[in-house]
């Protein structure tokens, strides 16, 4: 999984080109499999098919070559196809590697999937991060129109695209200095990390294991990392093959895995990294000492080296009312040729305390120019976090330079963390001749501006968006971790979750404290377990959707799962179940309150509701059908401490915890999560985000009348029934008192 986001790519791209990165689309996963170079086995280049759309589009595919690979040349094999509508004479696919052009490939859709094999010049590919850039230019066979631009696509196909490294087969040693670069390699995408200890459920071990998991996740950027927790008892080296391994414990605990010469270096406090005896592509990392304190020092040393492989550009944070230029937000003037269909994006961050509703508006003022080649249907469609907000018509047949096109974007569409305003060009040419013109037809200037009004500052919990954006609040504030199950599956799921949170936070979560299942934590809480092991007061708040005694369904397990997790019984799924689930969802939607349905009716027209993200669906009643079992990540108010969050990863059985969290952290799903819970259903293997409970405040408003007013109004706007009641109550009271007063008139 690529570890970077779109922004850095954009920063490097030539002005005027739309860039779609693999990360954002969530389809491009460069997976350079570790292999023996000597046998010239191809390395898969893509994790999934990648689409390029419109008259011009671009994607950057990062590939990270591990430092131990020795090679002198490489071959890129690319399989791709394109739409029949693409006119070959005026279309092509340009390739570049690390900024150097490689080739231009023809787009001939009529022949089906095309292939190309390109020998990469010596020295152009290097250890560490490399970037392939694929850029298409596409013209339509028929007279151009906006609809036809949308018919233009090319697809980079995963199945036969690969990178082959040619070399001597020699491996460089992996040492502590290069271990993070090694772990970051694309070759390990999709593989779990194993963390083994003699007593994995021990609190100290879990704490160290979580730090290792976070460190490894961190060096992998945004690519998800699944972590298996293993008990070393009864295992040997061959059972560890196929993944990188971390061993945590005392020398005594791990003596079966240590060689005598290892003991000497461990005693000297040096970290130990060794290739797996049964699998030289993977390594074992020993965090071992004479006692657990020494092991902790080793873990700290490793964690201290862990950083993101590529820091994403720091997004501008709008933390106050004011007027901001688009250039402040990192936006640069863009010039679009006819036929571009991908959006221009403004991204910025809002503080965790951002608390505003639809009643307030941000004003976006765009400055732009467009050519006289536009039809009356040309427009810019503005979407906020994926929701249509407004549009600007480009319907002056003479073209125009527009300074100060104002639009109001309701603040309810924004949320704490990363927000995106996407401006989709709907460039509709007025004639065929208009398409033949060279040069840009639309320019969006960076001197536009954005005015943010004073907004309420009141940090809230109960929204997964805060969690997925930067791991809030676990990176910022003291928190406890409660892993209630003693089984390795539960512990592995906790590691996986913590690893993901550290990735989003950008550094290790340094203020975590592991507590036993019976504790009453006073801070924020991350809890992982099953309903029968988690504290009942916490379980009572979760609104679990499962019925007791459901039949488990088989889940894809890692090879070691059967040895480490709760056994899962096989069952034959009834094909009607998926229909039942779908119908129950529909019923749930239709069965909402009248107000909700009216609201939906209004919102469907307005498309301006800020609280619903793309994946978030209306709250459905707890599914009670067979097959609805699975795992759920949910944020609720802590039952033990006011104004504290409890983030709970729970499953109806322990065996669902790890596959559940693995599915949930998949990109782009993770980045789009909203609501207060996300549920993975084992039988359907699908993920649903939803909201059952409103968000809850984590603090009191600032002692400022303006803040009190804003916070109160926002709260009312978000609690419609109470607001309506107040409105009607105020009306009734005022009219009643008025009526009494009127009766007292003497004239």
């Amino acid at each position, binding site marked *: 999984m690529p570890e970077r986001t779109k922004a850095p790519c954009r920063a490097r791209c030539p002005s005027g080109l739309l860039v779609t990165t693999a990360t954002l689309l969530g389809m491009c996963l460069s997976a350079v499999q570790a292999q023996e170079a000597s046998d010239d086995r191809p390395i898969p280049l893509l994790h999934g098919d990648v689409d390029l759309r419109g008259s011009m589009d671009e994607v950057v595919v990062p590939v990270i070559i591990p430092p131990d690979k020795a090679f002198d040349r490489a071959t890129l094999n690319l399989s791709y196809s394109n739409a029949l509508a693409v006119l070959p004479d005026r279309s092509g696919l340009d390739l570049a590697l690390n900024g150097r052009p490689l080739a231009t490939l023809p787009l001939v859709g009529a022949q089906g999937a095309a292939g190309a094999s390109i020998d990469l010049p010596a020295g152009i590919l290097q250890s560490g991060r490399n970037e392939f850039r694929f850029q298409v230019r596409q013209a339509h066979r028929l007279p151009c129109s906006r609809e036809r631009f949308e018919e233009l696509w090319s697809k980079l196909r995963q199945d036969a695209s690969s990178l082959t490294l040619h070399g001597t087969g020699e491996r460089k040693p992996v040492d502590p200095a290069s271990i993070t670069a090694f772990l970051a390699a694309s070759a390990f995408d999709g593989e779990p990390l194993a963390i083994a200890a003699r007593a994995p459920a021990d609190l100290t071990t879990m704490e160290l294991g979580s730090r290792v998991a976070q460190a490894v996740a961190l060096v992998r950027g945004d690519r998800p990392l699944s972590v298996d927790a293993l008990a070393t008892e009864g295992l040997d080296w061959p059972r560890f093959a196929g993944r990188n391994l971390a061993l945590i414990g005392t020398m005594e605990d791990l003596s079966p895995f240590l060689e005598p010469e290892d003991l000497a270096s461990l005693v000297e406090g040096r970290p130990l990294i060794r290739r797996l005896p049964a699998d030289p592509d993977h390594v074992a990392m020993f965090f071992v000492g004479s006692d657990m304190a020494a092991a902790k020092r080793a873990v700290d040393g490793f964690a201290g080296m862990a950083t993101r492989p590529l820091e994403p550009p720091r997004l501008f944070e709008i933390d106050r009312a004011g007027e901001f230029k688009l250039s402040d937000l990192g936006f640069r003037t863009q010039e679009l040729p006819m036929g571009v269909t991908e959006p221009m994006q403004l991204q910025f961050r809002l503080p965790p305390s951002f608390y505003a*509703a*639809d009643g307030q508006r941000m004003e976006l003022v765009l400055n732009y120019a467009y050519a006289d080649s536009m039809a009356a249907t040309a427009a810019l469609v503005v979407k906020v976090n994926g929701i249509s907000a407004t549009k600007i*018509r480009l319907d002056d047949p003479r073209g125009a330079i527009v300074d*100060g096109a104002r639009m109001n974007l309701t603040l309810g569409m924004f949320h704490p963390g990363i927000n995106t305003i996407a401006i989709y060009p709907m460039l509709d040419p007025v004639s065929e001749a208009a398409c033949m013109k060279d040069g840009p037809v639309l320019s969006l200037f960076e001197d536009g501006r954005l005015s943010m009004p004073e907004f309420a500052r009141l940090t809230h919990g109960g929204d997964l968006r805060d969690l997925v954006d930067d791991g809030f609040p676990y990176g910022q504030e003291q928190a406890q971790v409660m892993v209630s199950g003693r089984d390795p599956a539960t512990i592995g799921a906790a590691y996986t979750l913590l690893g993901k949170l550290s990735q989003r936070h950008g550094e290790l979560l340094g203020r975590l404290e592991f507590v036993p299942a019976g504790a009453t934590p006073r801070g924020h809480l991350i809890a992982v377990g099953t309903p029968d092991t988690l504290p009942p007061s916490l379980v009572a708040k979760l609104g679990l959707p499962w019925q007791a005694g459901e039949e488990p369904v088989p889940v894809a397990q890692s090879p070691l799962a059967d040895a480490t997790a709760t056994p899962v019984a096989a069952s034959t799924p009834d094909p009607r179940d998926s229909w039942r689930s779908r119908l129950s969802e529909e019923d749930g939607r239709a069965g909402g309150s009248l107000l909700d349905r*009216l609201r939906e009716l209004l919102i469907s027209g307005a498309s301006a509701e800020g609280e619903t993200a793309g994946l978030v669906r209306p709250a459905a009643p707890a599914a009670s059908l067979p097959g609805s079992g699975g795992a759920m990540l949910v944020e609720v108010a802590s039952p033990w401490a006011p104004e504290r969050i409890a983030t709970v990863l729970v499953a109806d059985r322990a065996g669902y915890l790890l596959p559940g969290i693995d599915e949930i952290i998949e990109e782009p799903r993770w980045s789009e999560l909203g609501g207060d819970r996300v549920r993975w259903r084992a039988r359907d293997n699908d993920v649903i985000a939803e909201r059952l409970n409103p968000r809850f405040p984590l603090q009191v408003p600032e002692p400022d009348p303006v803040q009190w007013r804003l916070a109160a109004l926002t709260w009312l706007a978000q609690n419609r029934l109470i607001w*309506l009641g107040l409105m009607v109550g105020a009306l009734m009271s005022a*009219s009643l008192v008025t009526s009494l007063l009127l009766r007292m008139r003497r*004239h």
Partner: protein
Amino acid sequence: MDQATRPPPGAGIEVVDRRGRRGSSLRILWMMPWLLMMAVLLWFGAQDFGVANQGVLALLLLAVLLVLHVTRLTKVCRTFFIFTAAFLSWRYVSWRVADTLPDPTSWAFIPGVLLFAAEIYGILMLFLGVFVNIRPIDRPTAPLALDPAELPTVDVFVPSYNEPEDLLETTLIAASQMTYPRDKLRVYLLDDGGTAQKQNDRDPRKAKEAIARNRTLQLLCARLGCFYLTRERNEHAKAGNINAALGKTDGDLILILDADHVPTEDFLQNTVGHFAQDPKLFMVQSPHFFINPDPLERNLDTFGRMPSENEMFYQVGQRGLDSWNASFFCGSAAVLRRTYLVSIGGIQGTSITEDAETALELHAKGLSSRYVAKPMIAGLSPDTFASFIGQRSRWAQGMIQILLLKNPLWKRGLHLSQRISYLSSMVFWLFPVARMLFLITPLAYLFFGMQIYRASYQEFVAYGLAHLAASLLLTNFMFGHVRWPFISELYEIAQAPFLVRAIGSVLLRPRAPTFKVTAKAERLDRNFVSELSRPLVLLLGLLAIGTIAGVARWYAFPLERENVAIVLGWNLFNLLFVLGAIGVVHEQKQRRGMPRVPRSLTAAATIGGSLVPVQIADLSVGGAQLKLDEEAEIYRDLAHGAGSLDVELRGEIRTIPFEIRHAVVEDDVLVLGIRFDCQTEAQRVDVVSLCFGSSDAWVSFQAARQHPRTVIGGFLHFANLCLVKGTLGIIAGLRQGQVDAVPAAVGHAARKLALPQDLIQGAKSDA
């Protein structure tokens, strides 16, 4: 000195109740919680909670309004209903102010702000109307003192300028016949048409006419037992006329009647008693009730079927004003206490609406007024659209004069509620400006694409339509039985192009307008399209072109269709209004100077020597329509003979001779058209009593047409009126244009008042 006239303050003395002021302070303290509650409600209602929330709130509140309206629970929760509807309008205006104004740097800002101002005006009027009419009062009749000696003396003033003798005779007879001790009632004809100045006019013809008028009316008064008063010079028009009479008379109370306002017999019985109840009472006003259709009613053929235009003011508005002690003098049909009137120097003359101005001055002295809602005079509306416009121009100019020269907001001595009430009555007359803006501003978008109203379709629905729906429901609730939906708008749009210039002139020169007498009892011999139709036709053409432009914009700019649909719909609505206004200026013939009014009265008639029961179906001072339901064929033979009508008047059977002018059989009922053939003065008195003596007849007549319509039913009725009458008006106009015929049959006033310049500057004082 009787109870009704004590204690008379001297002229110029401030009559302010200090105890009342202390009471006001206490009341303000007591009202603090209410003020706080209202402040919270208004603040709360002004906050933006997002379009989705607003949509839900609007649906909820509209549903509540509808349920209350349909179930008639409004009787027990009137205030809540009004508050709820007004609250939606408040939400709208708050949103409109905050979010919808165009960019100040764009050209659209100018029309956008003008439209906004018009809307603000409309909503201001809505709120002022809500305030005034939130709980109108019904005054019970105040009984007269049992001992006639304790009753105050009453002088009846009938100011006249150029009204014909027969019209004055009817009024004077009716005034003389009012039930009141003879020795305490004096009727004065205040003739300004026969002044010394007029008799010595440089134009010999005019001088001769004035002399003849003077002599004739003196004889008339002598014959009727009334007093004829005139003066040297025609100064200060009607106000000057009345003030001149004040110095020559001494009655405790003064009843002022316009020359065409014929009082019922019980007028003084229903009004004078109030003066004994309230020593600070300076006036009791009663409604003006018109027995003929105004031009809109006649030209649209709605008279008798639809509540008359002035009923909204006289049946609801004045009652509302009365509830705030702010019902004001309407120039006629009011009894005033002489001492208070004299204390301010008589009828005021700063403005050309001397009546309202006089009431304002008296209210400012801490005095009170009352309003009796029972119709007790029968008057005449202007007959031509031109006269109608002339009358309304005077009212508009006069009220704006008061607003500018004696602004009630700053006038010392008034209570806040009185200030607001007067403000409501005066600001209302700015409606022509707002109406014209509503008509024209959509064209800025349709023609030039200017975005004068920044809102999304969803916002417009959630805020704008909710406000419109609530306003319709509210006005229908408050005024539905006296004003059908959309009829106010039709009246206002028909007047707007003419009044807007009149208002402009008075804004520029507040003291320039002068009093003009409204022509009454005109006759129109045939149908024609008024010359005043030109601005309306121009407007119609402009709106029609705007509609075409809107359709073109619909096709040319597909992405604007949501906006185009809204504005085009608005423009079509305007088009409908203007079409209806053109129907209004299509004058329908008017043959009778004194109209007949429907009546259902049982009487006996002697026809061919036989006494037969008859039903009086309609009635005027000239004649009546009788229905005989027995042996129709027999009496048909007597169709052209004479007879007499036996009716009970003042407790005795009176006989009135008549001639049968025509007879027809309709559904086995013989219908006779008769003309009264009065031979004696007593018979003439009997005819007047029969026609105008009973206020119950007017109450019944009014009640028969006061039935509400639903908003949708009202719209269908209105649309039908506009389409049918407007189309007929256009066709008639086209034909008239082909013939190029001047409507020679138009009465004199119509010809004079048709000149817009005349409206703007005001005629030189007729005095």
